[in-house]
Every structure is written in structure tokens, then in C-alpha cells.
């Protein structure tokens, strides 16, 4: 790599590029640093953001445990997993139909994203109304249904491209080799788009995990998800910044870890070299 760099780019450009990368990395890294430090600071110390060396306190983390942040993280995980599982199962079938059979015509391809154009406020009150009618208010079920309204279309849309790229001949081959259409879809097409499904699932999970708006309105009480719980540190007595920092870290770290392990799999295309053009 060093030889490649030195022959292709002038050293000045390489170092300029590196500095730019460092700058960008810092812009991402600094908020985390601030959060991490903040989660160990007392209220008074938090008023001085530049304070790097101080006697750390665990009070914020204790508060986070006391106030049920972990339970709400658990609820968020359930909401995310259920939403994504349903979206992947329904979305992959929908995306396949749209990709292969042009179901709904060409307008469906982007039309399925139409709900995203609406402000969430337009959708949330009908959801609230219906959830009241069915006595589902303040349940995870209501949150999951509302999350499906934006995760499912996005995952479907995301997967259409992957199905488009999957060679048609392979599933035709499977049909000739003795599979029914659904078997061919399950055993041959799905493995080909597996990296895409993985990427879509992570993406969809993050969308659901981060949602505050629907969760806050549909389940603000006992079923509060993590973002709702984090928001609750913004009390009428003021913002409990230290506890909030700790809670935000609880929200961010799992996503970071999952992304770190999955990123290589996301990039790798499983079907590379299977079909020669």
C-alpha cells in the first residue's frame, strides 16, 4: 500500500488527505468524548465543558440504573427486533414482487416511500386514536405498529435494488431444478441478497431504535422506549445532563458495536463471480 500511495499521489496530497480524515474523525469522536466525560461529571463540573481532569463520580450511572434506562433499552430492543423481523419478512417478499413482477407498476418503486414525505405528526394522531380505541395505548405493540409504518417501506425500498441485481437465471435454474417459485425464492434468491437483507435490517433497526416521536406519543408511560427515557431526563426542574449523557451512551454503544462487526459483511457481495456476463 505504501508503494501504491507514493507512486500515485504526491506526499503533500497524501498528508493533506490524512489531515482531512483526522479532522472528520475528530468531529465524530469529540461528541463521544464529551458524552463519556459528561457521564462521570457532577452537575457543577458539567458547566465547564473544557474540564478534562476531574474526580469522576458514578452518581449519573447509578441514576441511570435507578430510573430504569436498562429496562427501556430492553423494550427498545424488543421493538426494534420485532419491527425489523416483520419488515424483513414482509419487505423481502414485497421487494421481490416489485423487482421481478413489476407489481404496482413503476410508480410503486418509489411510491412506497410516499409515507416518508409526510411529517410524522400527520400519522401519529391517527395511530394514537386507533391505539386508544383498541386499548393499546402505552403498549409496545402500538409502538411496533407505528415503527412498521416507516421501517417496512424503507427496508422494502432498500431491498428492491438488491433483488434487481440478483441474476434472474439463477432462480429460473432453481425452478427447472425442481423447486416451486416460493422455494426458489427462499432457498436461492434470499441467499443471494443476504448481505442486502443484513444491511437493511441494521438500517431499519437503527431507525426504530432512534425513534422518539412515535414512541413518546404512543407509549410515554410504563412502556417507554430508550429515546423516551432519555428525553425524560429533561425534567421541569431542568436538564439532568449527567444522567442524560450516561443514558445516551447506553443508547449509542450497542449500535456502534453491531455496526463494527457487521460492516464487512455488509460490503461483501455474496454473489460476486457467480454469474458471468
Amino acid at each position, binding site marked *: 500500500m505504501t508503494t501504491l500511495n507514493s507512486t500515485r499521489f504526491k506526499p503533500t496530497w497524501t498528508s493533506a488527505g490524512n489531515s482531512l480524515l483526522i479532522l472528520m474523525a475528530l468531529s465524530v469522536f469529540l461528541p463521544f468524548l464529551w458524552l463519556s466525560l459528561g457521564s462521570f461529571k457532577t452537575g457543577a463540573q458539567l458547566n465547564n465543558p473544557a474540564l478534562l481532569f476531574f474526580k469522576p463520580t458514578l452518581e449519573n450511572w447509578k441514576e441511570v440504573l435507578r430510573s430504569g434506562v436498562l429496562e427501556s433499552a430492553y423494550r427498545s430492543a424488543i421493538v426494534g427486533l420485532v419491527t425489523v423481523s416483520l419488515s424483513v419478512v414482509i419487505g423481502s417478499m414485497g421487494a421481490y414482487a416489485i423487482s421481478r413482477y413489476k407489481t404496482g407498476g413503476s410508480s410503486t418503486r418509489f411510491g412506497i416511500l410516499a409515507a416518508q414525505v409526510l411529517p410524522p405528526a400527520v400519522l401519529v394522531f391517527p395511530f394514537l386514536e386507533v391505539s386508544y380505541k383498541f386499548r393499546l395505548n402505552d403498549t409496545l405493540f402500538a409502538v411496533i405498529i407505528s415503527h412498521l409504518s416507516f421501517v417496512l417501506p424503507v427496508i422494502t425500498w432498500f431491498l428492491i435494488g438488491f433483488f434487481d441485481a440478483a*441474476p434472474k*437465471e*439463477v432462480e*429460473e*435454474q*432453481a*425452478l*427447472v*431444478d*425442481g*423447486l*416451486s*417459485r416460493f*422455494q426458489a425464492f427462499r432457498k*436461492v434468491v434470499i*441467499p*443471494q441478497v*443476504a448481505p442486502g437483507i443484513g444491511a437493511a435490517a441494521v438500517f431499519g433497526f437503527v431507525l426504530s431504535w432512534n425513534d422518539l416521536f412515535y414512541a413518546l406519543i404512543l407509549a410515554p408511560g410504563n412502556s417507554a422506549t430508550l429515546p423516551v427515557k432519555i428525553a425524560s431526563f429533561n425534567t421541569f426542574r431542568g436538564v439532568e445532563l449527567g444522567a442524560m449523557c450516561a443514558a445516551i451512551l447506553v443508547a449509542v454503544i450497542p449500535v456502534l458495536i453491531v455496526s463494527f462487526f457487521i460492516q464487512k459483511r455488509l460490503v461483501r457481495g*455474496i*454473489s*460476486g*463471480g*457467480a*454469474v*458471468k*456476463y
Partner: protein
Amino acid sequence: MASISLKQIQKSFGDVEVVKGLDLEIPNGQFTVLVGPSGCGKTTTLRMIAGLETVDSGVIQIGDKDVTKLEPKDRDVAMVFQNYALYAHLSVADNIGFPLRSKGVNKEEISLRVAEVAASLGISELLKRKPKELSGGQQQRVAIGRAIIRNPQVFLFDEPLSNLDAKLRLEMRTEIIRLQRRLGTTAVYVTHDQEEAMTLSDVMVVMKDGLIKQLGKPDDIYKKPIDVFVAEFVGSPKMNLMKGQASAGNFSAESGFQIKVDPKLSGEITLGIRPEDIKITSKDASSTQGRIEIMEQLGPRAILTIQSGNQQITAVVDNEQLKQVMDKANISINSHSEVHHYFETSTGLRIN
């Protein structure tokens, strides 16, 4: 093994009618090649036999069974695609064994049969690999292995050699012939390459615009093409075709080119002469004159592009003939009238 029968098959994609009432009987155990220019409906026909395309009207039978409305899996056909269509997530062994597994054959038997098939194709050492670790030729063998493993009624080949380089293509061509002879399974093969069609087929079907133009043994089609299209399509280099007038045993083309023809002919005709039927000699005042423009040497023979007046003529000559004219730019062209092909100019149909 089974015969295939297509009766009045019709298929349109939107407003475009790609197969227009096609009738075709493919005898049991024969190697039939559908050949034609792109868009002639040959691949669609093959896909309809496989069940990958529905039929708008008509009947398809495999053996005695009407399969017109059956799903591909119920037709007992095996297919080899142009791009091999291997299952990228499965090993070579699992790829070859796939049709058996989907039939529910037990594992021991599958691995036994896979080993057998792999050995017959010379790919035993590749069984554990994934398709992307194979060369094009090896992938092709795997695809063929997957097709032969379950002894289907019919083999369907959709331009399986198009993605291979020239040398490998010849090699696989002979291998496919050998395989089909050994297994005796009815095969339908689609190609746009007339040379491939000539060499592979027991029966060659030349198609154009969704219809069969001519059907027969390759040699018969080569010797007696039914019309100008088939005459030009079959054979490489292409047949020389000239429009002109015939009278009293003389033919004079629109370009001014003159040659002796069958004295019974008269009026407007199109004359066709295969390049190898053109004889060239050193200049001789009694026959048509020409000038060698381009000489493409192929070892035992050469392809000459000859300019005679305004007429361009392609000739294939052996080295003996070539020696006589090697150092001369100007030559004489001759051709026996027995090997001429005569077509009606207005309809393009064969006269003799």
C-alpha cells in the same frame, strides 16, 4: 428421454409477437439446434419448453404428456444457461446435487451420483469449491453436471458456450456432443452461431421473426437453403449473392459481373455462390476478371476478397489454388453452374 412436440405455439411480449404459430416436432434422442439472428424467437421458444415463459396459445408436449400449463419443476427438463446460473452460496458438489436434493433423494445416493458425474466431467477435485473460485470453463462443466445428474427427459441449452473463449468453446462443443451421444437424451440447443449449429445438430432449425424458415439436417440446409435469408445466414464466410438478369445461360449482375449459369434460367434472379465454390485461376481471357483485394490466410486455406468491376466476391480457396495466383493481383473467377443457388429476386425463394 422423450420427444417434444410444439403445436401452433404463439407468444407475444406486449405488442410484439415474438413467436408466431410455431410447429415443431423434436424426435426422441436427437440433438436439435435452434439457430437464428437475435430476436428471432429461438430463446423464447426454448424457455417455453422449459416452462419459464407461459404460452399465449398452442400446445407443448414432452413425450405423451401435455406440459403446456405445467410448472418448470413438473416438466422433467434440465437447462444450461448462458451465464451458467450456478448457486453462488453452494459448493460445487451441492450445486451438482441440487436437483436431486430438491427431489428428496437421500444424502448417500446424492454424494455417490455427484462423485460419478463429477468424474465424468473431470471436475472431481473441484467439488468443495465455491462457484466464484472456478474458471469459466469449470463453471460451465458444473452447470452441465447439474443438468445431467438426474437423467431428465430433455436437455435445454441456452447459448451455453457464448461466454467461453474460442478454444474452450470448441473443446466444450465436442464434449457436449459426446455427452449427448452417450446419454441419448433429447436435446434442444439455442445459438446464434450458425457454425455451432452446423457442428452440433442432428436437426437444425433456422428461425427468423418468430417462425421456422427451414428445418433439416445441417448439410441439407447448407446445400439447399430454402431462401435468400437461410442462404446468407448459414455458412461462413457468407454466400455471395447477386441480383441480376439471366438469359441463354448467361447471368449478368446489376454490378456488371457476368458468369455462366444454367441455360434454362431466364429473367430476374438472385444468384448465390458459396465462397468455396468460386474457383480462381491465373488470368485467362475467356472468363470473368477480378482483382484480389484482401487475403486472409487460415493455414490450409485462405479467404479472398475479390473485386470484379463493381462486384465484391468472397472466395475460400485451398493452398494449391492460392499458389497459382499468389503473386498476381489480377485473376480469373469461375464457378460451375451445378453448385449455383438460384433464388427468385422478388420473393427470395429458391428456384433450383
